[in-house]
């Protein structure tokens, strides 16, 4: 028989406000096995923990029940307390009488009744608890960063700096991501390339970093500290080790009509290409969808002009298998498609562009060599209308756009407007806004400069429609403060399109068993206190894959994720969770149900010798659980038809005892 102690926490008035804590500790005093029961204002405080420790010693307790907040909050705390007093930490049970009781009930009698019932269930369970000992697993001291934008770059550099090897997997032929496509960066207006490309070079030169460019994660197995990852290195038909990046092939390739994705399709590139001059790795890639040689077997110009002999038309996709201790998702964002926003005529006129296209249009390496011209006729625009919140802050019922604020548009639009007025003072610039949102260091000052020093016309209201008429764009909009409808004859319309997570994030989350929100942003383990960790152990989040953010925030978060990874990789061993499945070999009927449902591949079948009643020996196949791989989800215990599979710490008889206690 157990000797159980019950400790009821008031949590100030959080619990005591709706639950009569004295009544709860009195009621539980009479439960089977309970030898001590008390209540205290803050059980998690030092004084509260001392009450528990003293009671364990004084009453020779073999198990304890703490009626307090959710086990997610303080289970670890109370397990440590018990361990410090010499009790096995898995002899501790938490009855959640805060989140699942006091916070959801309004009147004292109901709250108290439920708290007593929850307490009884926990007592019934502890009666059947057995001491458990966690196993240990080694840590592979190598990290994987998925995505080579500024977030992935910063995370990889910081991890490498701490002395651990890092691999970056980037699906494009070069690292750099969206930041490489930007012209200037707010609020200081330093050029994006000038601050990004040195970091890209640092990555390339760091001995601890390997870049798998033009590669994608194919499969993820294993668990924290011991991930097994398969990476598909797509065939680029160029030998990376030999190619010098001289670029002659990209000049001689006769296939000239390939939309250049780096310039968002506003100009063309060749079928063999280097995305931009500062690409890392600076290696050519053949676009198999457009290459005449790969499609018809006739051409071979690049191979003829390549003095290094790097072209290899027979190259195949390669699968790389590697072990990692930690994985960082840094998959980034894209602007949303403008297809559902017909009113802005994006698909009807070349002179209606998105803000990212505007970045390329003003960039010296862009399609117009940095001259701000209309994409349709190459003429200088004299009136430019910027529209904010295109697809951001849309209600779900509106069935287009995103519900969230994309966060960066107010600032980059102020930047675009300001730079335009600075370089082309003869241009009239209008910005239509719903709210100007500029929280951030030196951000509001920046926006005010656009208005006060650069004379940008900020108008509170939305654009209702854009209609191309001749070579003009007729913009019909609201000026809410003047209570007027405006009609502006514009030469260029720039849409601040909402941002969304990259499409590769959803399948990646499935591979990582990492959770996502309804918008496909990765969910953090705790929105405030664990913002760079995924709820899946060993998976960390960096940059816009977690939520919209600007460059300073992305870099901060990237470094934070790196710090978490370093903390993990610095350990030699990880303590596992002892609440894992175990099979009763005598009851196992070899049906394989458990093996099939196990999401972690923790169950295998082994041949084992059994001594039969007639003293013969028989070999039977039985289920065997790899405790280091099992995550304790319990799927196998439900699937097992013979009841051979059980979960330590959550045994079927323990659960039934809890249910019985609740129903009694």
């Amino acid at each position, binding site marked *: 028989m157990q000797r159980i102690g019950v400790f009821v926490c008031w949590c100030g008035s959080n619990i005591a406000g709706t639950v009569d804590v004295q009544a709860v500790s009195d009621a539980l005093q009479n439960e089977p096995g309970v030898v001590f029961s008390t209540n205290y204002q803050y059980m998690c405080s030092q004084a509260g923990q001392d009450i528990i420790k003293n009671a364990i010693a004084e009453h020779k307790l073999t198990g304890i029940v703490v009626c307090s907040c959710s086990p997610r909050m303080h289970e670890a705390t109370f397990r440590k307390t018990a361990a410090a007093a010499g009790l096995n930490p898995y002899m501790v049970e938490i009855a959640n009488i805060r989140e699942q009781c006091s916070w959801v009930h309004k009147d004292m009698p109901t709250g108290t009744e439920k708290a007593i019932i929850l307490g009884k269930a926990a007592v019934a369970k502890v009666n059947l608890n057995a001491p458990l000992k966690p196993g240990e697993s080694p840590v592979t001291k190598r990290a994987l960063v998925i995505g080579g934008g500024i977030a992935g770059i910063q995370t990889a550099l910081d991890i490498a700096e701490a002395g651990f090897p890092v691999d970056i997997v980037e699906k494009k032929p070069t690292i750099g991501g969206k930041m490489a496509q930007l012209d200037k960066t707010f609020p200081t207006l330093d050029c994006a390339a000038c601050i990004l490309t040195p970091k890209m070079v640092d990555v390339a030169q760091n001995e601890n970093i390997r870049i798998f460019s033009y590669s994608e994660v194919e499969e993820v197995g294993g668990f924290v500290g011991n991930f097994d990852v398969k990476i598909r290195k797509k065939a680029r038909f160029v030998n990376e080790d030999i190619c010098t990046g001289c670029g002659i092939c990209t000049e001689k390739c006769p296939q000239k009509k390939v939309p250049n994705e780096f310039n968002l399709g506003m100009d063309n590139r060749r079928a063999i290409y280097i995305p931009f001059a500062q690409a890392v790795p600076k290696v050519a890639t053949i676009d198999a969808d457009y290459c005449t040689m790969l499609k018809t077997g006739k051409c071979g110009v690049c191979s003829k002009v390549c003095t290094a002999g790097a072209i290899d038309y027979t190259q195949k996709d390669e699968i790389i298998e590697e072990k990692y201790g930690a994985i960082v998702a840094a998959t980034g964002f894209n602007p949303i498609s403008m297809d559902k926003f017909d009113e802005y005529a994006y698909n009807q006129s070349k002179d209606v562009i998105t803000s990212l296209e505007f970045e390329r249009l003003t960039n010296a390496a862009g399609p117009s060599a940095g001259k701000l011209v209309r994409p349709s006729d190459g003429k200088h625009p004299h009136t430019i209308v910027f529209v904010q*919140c295109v697809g951001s802050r849309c209600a*779900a019922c*509106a069935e287009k756009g995103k519900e969230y604020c994309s966060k960066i548009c107010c600032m980059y639009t102020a930047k675009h407007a300001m730079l335009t007025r600075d370089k082309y003072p003869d241009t009239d610039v209008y910005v239509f806004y*719903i709210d100007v949102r500029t929280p951030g260091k030196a951000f509001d000052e920046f926006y005010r400069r656009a208005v006060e020093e650069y004379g940008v016309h900020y108008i509170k*209201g939305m654009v*209702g*429609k854009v209609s191309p008429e001749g070579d003009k764009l007729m913009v019909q909009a609201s000026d*809410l403060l003047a209570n007027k409808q405006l009609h502006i004859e514009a030469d260029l319309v720039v849409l601040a399109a909402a941002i969304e997570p990259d499409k590769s994030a959803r399948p990646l989350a499935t591979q990582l068993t990492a959770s996502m929100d309804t918008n496909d942003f990765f969910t953090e383990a705790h929105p405030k206190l664990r913002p760079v960790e995924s709820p899946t152990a060993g998976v960390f989040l960096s940059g816009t894959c977690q939520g919209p953010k600007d460059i300073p925030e992305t870099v901060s978060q990237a470094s934070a994720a790196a710090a978490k990874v370093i903390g993990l990789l610095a350990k030699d061993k990880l303590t596992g969770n002892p609440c894992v499945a175990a099979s009763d070999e005598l009851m196992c009927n070899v049906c394989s149900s458990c093996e099939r449902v196990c999401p972690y591949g923790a169950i295998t079948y082994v041949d084992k010798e059994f001594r039969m009643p007639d003293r013969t020996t028989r070999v039977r196949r039985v289920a065997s659980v790899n405790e280091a791989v099992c995550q304790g989800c319990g799927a196998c215990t439900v699937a097992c038809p013979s009841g051979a599979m059980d979960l330590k710490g959550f045994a079927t008889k323990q659960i039934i005892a809890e249910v019985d206690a609740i129903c009694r």
Partner: protein
Amino acid sequence: MNNSTENLQKEIIRSSGVNPKKCMRCGKCSATCPAYDEMEYHPHQFVYMVENGDIQPLLESKSLFQCLTCFACIERCPRGVEPAKLVEAVRLAVIRKQGANHLKADDIPALLDEDMPQQAIVSALRKYSK
């Protein structure tokens, strides 16, 4: 807000199925409205005034009958507020109110023309005689 205005506000919100609180004041409805210049109160003002219970001026406004019911505001509202349905609800509130007709039965003969269907004339006389 007195009781009758509050009831009218509730009735308009109920019959239109519109929740004016969803409005984020972006003005896209008024930006998109083709009848904007004809209207005394513009679509975004309709939403704001109903939300605040400022219904009386709307009941008396010609704007009610200037709305083309083209539904451009409904189509483009990013918050799914549906201003045109609100205009329609206020319009119905006016039409259904006895003795507050915008026409009198005596005005009808002057409006007649030969293309007008007989049925319309009869129903107009019935309606506006009340």
